[in-house]
């Protein structure tokens, strides 16, 4: 060209322009070119290689394309004219296969060799494929580009079953699309919570429930073992637990890996992604990289927002004004129509970090913001995400929120509403007919009238006008009205369960049954818990209440159990455990004694002791050895003694009529029968039984939770005794004539205690609280009560009398007993 000074872009500038070659015609590659063109359109002669045989499109909109909400044409970002109009050469459908840094050329699959002055790698990511048997069968697809979408659409034409492996953002969007296209969809997710990197347990639970309500099958904690084949095509998925799911198509959406192959082969520095500095320059100054394929300051990103920031920094640098990229804070939204979900920042809390949680059970809303040092550091929103961008903005800018803290959770309109930022003022400003309690339809006027008529505590308001008595999400408002109306005269109500809720234990027990609540996260949501996942006192209590309310249905939550119950042994001060096998009614035999002696020797137990509960306790067992110890004891016919549990402990007996000169009945035999009937049962607290053969009472039956004192004419049944810290002798409950009646009343009494007492309340304080008369009335006023309670107890026992030691010895929950690994420093130093 002989017109170097020409201002005509397509002619003049090309002659002196540096040659910029871009590998990757995706979102980051094209955006980088756009940014450069906007700054200096004449600087580079651009060639873009794309593996996909098409122009640049908006990858994130593939989900709406799959769902039928958009067509491909709607999601094209840069059509052919853009390339032509900017003098860009597009080589599509022809991937680059090698970079030669010495000659500064790239070579494509078709053999095209292109020289560069500057090279930009923007190869994105490759979907990760779990290498299970069958992963390469026809019908197993990933979700990354338009070809994948077309394969899914072809499969969906015939209906049938789809299995999506991976319950992250991509997997759920694929599942949603396939479901809308008429397939029966199952999602298989390894972790217990969907989208666990973006959502906490509470929001993950709400999401799962909603997807299930829409007809998807969601299997969490499910690990894929194999993809099954029939006639050379995928036919199903088998999980590690043996379950099989039919499948006409399997979508693998378990994660992505930066596509670094080319860069690695060219000798660039690569860790997880291609290493770049703040100007997106790789270890070779002539080569830039951008997008999902890079690793910047230790981070790899899988969302588009960081790419935009990277592309700006890259273009600034490439055109001579270095600004630098310093990393991005990201936020996530799920593109599933009708589900509003937003998450951003760090929701792990931390020291000094405080959670503000708002739940509105009636509208299915969960909002959580995490505040630290007067700054917002994270947020998770489900059901109402209108304030997502406002929170995200506060978060990114690190603004001081102390002035609006109280009203922050109510959102922007409220928090910035001047006077309304004072929650009391906000309550005062409500009109009299504003509905305060949605569940029971109670207006502000009604609540205020109730308070003025004498209800001066939350509890009184709840019982007199029902406001806040159901889901509890309006409790804050009702408390505000109490403060406004009564000032200092508000009485604090009965003790709440813990600081996470304003409900008492009794309220929670009642509502679990009334509202059919079946999982801990559901209770937390429906009853408006103020913490995201409860605490060390409410979780064990809820676990018990659910177990008691839904026998055979509720799956015990190990995480909510105190160490002794989780390990099925008693932890000792040195971190070892003690093991107490059951000795029915205090009886034993040579085989059991020999097995115990053998265990003591084999595992070097430093001590074995006769307990106060008439059995033997083996001390000093390491958590790793517990399963083997149990296996040995099981082999001699012994099962767990539950010396560790809020459950039936021991049944103490005396020798009774069989040997004792004063014995009136077979106290030993009855003790054994009672223990056989009641062992394994979980209770609000520990529960002890004793049977004495006569009123001399050698088994100390009158300081037990349930004590039997045999007399000539039958059996006196005593309840509510306690040795321990505060001694309480039993109350006489009734007298019966036969063993069978004694056992029936025992079962009924235990069930009443199980259903009514608060967690960690033994029978003695329970009876003191409700009164012996109440207990007697509940058992004996209606002749049908004892049989009904006893039947419920037996029903529940059917699921409980399953020796936990045997299951552990057979390998269940092995990870609780094994170390992760052992570090032997010498090998590393």
């Amino acid at each position, binding site marked *: 060209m002989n017109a170097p000074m020409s201002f005509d872009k397509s002619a003049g500038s090309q002659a002196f322009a540096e040659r910029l070659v871009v590998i990757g015609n995706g979102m980051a590659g094209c955006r980088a070119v756009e940014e450069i063109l906007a700054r200096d359109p004449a600087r580079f002669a651009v060639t873009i290689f794309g593996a996909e045989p098409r122009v640049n499109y908006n990858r994130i909109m593939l989900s709406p394309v799959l769902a039928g909400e958009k067509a491909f044409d709607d999601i094209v970002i840069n059509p052919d004219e853009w390339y032509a109009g900017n003098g860009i050469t597009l080589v599509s459908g022809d991937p680059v296969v090698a970079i030669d840094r010495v000659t500064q050329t790239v070579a494509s699959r078709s053999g095209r060799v292109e020289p560069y002055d500057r090279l930009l790698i923007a190869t994105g990511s490759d979907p990760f494929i779990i290498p299970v048997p069958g992963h390469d069968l026809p019908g197993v697809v990933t979700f990354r580009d338009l070809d994948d979408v077309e394969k899914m659409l072809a499969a969906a034409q015939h209906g049938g079953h789809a299995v999506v492996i991976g319950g992250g953002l991509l997997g759920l969007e694929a599942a949603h699309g396939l479901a809308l296209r008429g397939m029966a969809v199952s999602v298989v997710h390894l972790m217990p919570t969907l989208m666990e990197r973006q959502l906490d347990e509470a929001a993950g639970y709400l999401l799962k429930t909603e997807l299930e309500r829409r007809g998807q099958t969601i299997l969490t904690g499910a690990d894929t073992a194999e993809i099954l084949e029939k006639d050379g095509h995928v036919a199903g998925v088998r999980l590690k637990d043996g379950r099989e799911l039919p499948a006409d198509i399997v979508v693998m959406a378990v994660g992505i890996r930066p596509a670094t192959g080319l860069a690695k082969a060219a000798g660039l520095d690569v860790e997880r992604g291609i290493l770049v500095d703040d100007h997106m320059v790789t270890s070779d100054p002539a080569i830039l990289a951008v997008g999902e394929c890079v690793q910047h300051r230790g981070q790899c990103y899988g969302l588009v927002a960081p790419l935009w920031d990277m592309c700006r920094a890259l273009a600034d640098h490439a055109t001579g004004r270095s600004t630098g990229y310093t990393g991005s804070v990201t936020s996530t939204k799920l593109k599933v129509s009708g589900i509003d979900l937003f998450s951003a920042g760090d929701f792990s809390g931390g020291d000094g970090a405080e*959670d503000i949680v708002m739940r509105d059970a009636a509208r299915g809303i969960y909002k959580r913001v995490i505040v630290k040092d007067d700054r917002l550091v994270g947020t998770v929103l489900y059901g109402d995400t209108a304030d997502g961008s406002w929170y995200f903005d506060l978060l990114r800018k690190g603004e001081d929120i102390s002035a609006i803290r109280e009203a922050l959770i109510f959102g922007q309109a409220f928090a910035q509403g001047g006077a309304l930022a004072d929650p009391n003022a906000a309550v005062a400003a409500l009109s009299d007919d504003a509905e305060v309690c949605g569940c029971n339809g109670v207006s502000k006027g009604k609540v205020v009238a109730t308070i003025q008529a004498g209800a001066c505590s939350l509890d009184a308001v709840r019982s007199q006008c029902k406001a806040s008595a159901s889901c509890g999400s309006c409790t804050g408002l009702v408390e505000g009205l109490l403060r406004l109306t009564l000032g200092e005269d508000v009485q604090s109500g009965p003790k709440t369960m813990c600081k996470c809720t304003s409900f008492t234990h009794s309220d929670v027990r009642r509502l679990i049954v009334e509202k059919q609540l079946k999982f801990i996260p559901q209770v937390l949501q429906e009853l408006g818990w103020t913490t995201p996942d409860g605490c060390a006192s409410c979780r064990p209590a809820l676990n018990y209440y659910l177990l008691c309310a839904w026998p055979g249905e509720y799956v015990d939550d190990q995480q909510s159990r105190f160490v002794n119950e989780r390990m099925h042994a008693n932890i000792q001060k040195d971190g070892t455990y003690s093991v107490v096998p059951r000795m029915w009614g205090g009886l034993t035999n040579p085989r059991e004694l020999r097995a115990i002696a053998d265990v003591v020797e084999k595992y070097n137990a430093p001590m074995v002791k006769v307990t106060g509960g008439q059995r033997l306790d083996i001390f000093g067992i390491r958590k790793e050895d517990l399963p083997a110890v149990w296996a040995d004891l099981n082999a001699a016919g012994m099962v767990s003694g539950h010396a560790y549990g809020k459950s039936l402990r021991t049944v103490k007996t005396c020798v009774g009529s069989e040997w004792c000169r004063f014995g009136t009945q077979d106290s030993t035999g009855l003790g054994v029968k009672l223990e056989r009937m009641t062992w394994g049962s979980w209770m609000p607290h520990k529960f002890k039984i004793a049977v004495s053969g006569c009123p001399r009472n050698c088994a100390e039956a009158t300081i037990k939770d349930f004590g039997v004192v045999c007399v000539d004419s039958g059996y006196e049944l005593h309840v509510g005794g306690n040795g321990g810290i505060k001694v309480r002798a039993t109350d006489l409950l009734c007298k019966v004539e036969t063993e069978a009646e004694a056992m029936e009343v025992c079962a009924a009494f235990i069930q009443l205690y199980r259903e009514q007492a608060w967690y960690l309340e033994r029978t003695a304080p329970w009876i003191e609280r409700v009164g012996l008369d109440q207990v007697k009335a509940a058992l004996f006023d209606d002749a049908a009560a004892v049989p009904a309670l006893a039947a419920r107890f037996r029903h529940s026992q059917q699921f409980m009398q399953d020796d936990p030691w045997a299951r552990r010895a057979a390998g269940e929950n092995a990870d609780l007993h094994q*170390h992760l690994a052992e*570090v032997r*420093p010498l090998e590393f130093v």
Partner: protein
Amino acid sequence: MIGEWLDIGPVSQIAPGHARTLPVRGGEEIAVFHTLDNRFYALVNRCPHKAGPLSQGIVHGNVVTCPLHSWNISLKTGEALGDDQGCVPTIPLKVDAGRIYLLREAVVGRRAA
């Protein structure tokens, strides 16, 4: 930072809400925690109160309640919360590509006295 981190295996080894242990020969046992909102932390497995094994406690938020006498220990800083005073060493941890890494010098540098 490559090379200074010890790879102790995939994140899936520790269920959320649980902790697992890592004995160090000639050093102090380490407890690795996985919280319910999917964060990972590592502490020396010894309560600042009376050396209770923190790995066996109940995990809630980013706090573990010691199984022996219920002190609440911050997983982030190792400090006892509330009125209790004391601190247990934390071990720098990172998660990358689904695997857990501990800072080697913090692991092996902590010899038992």
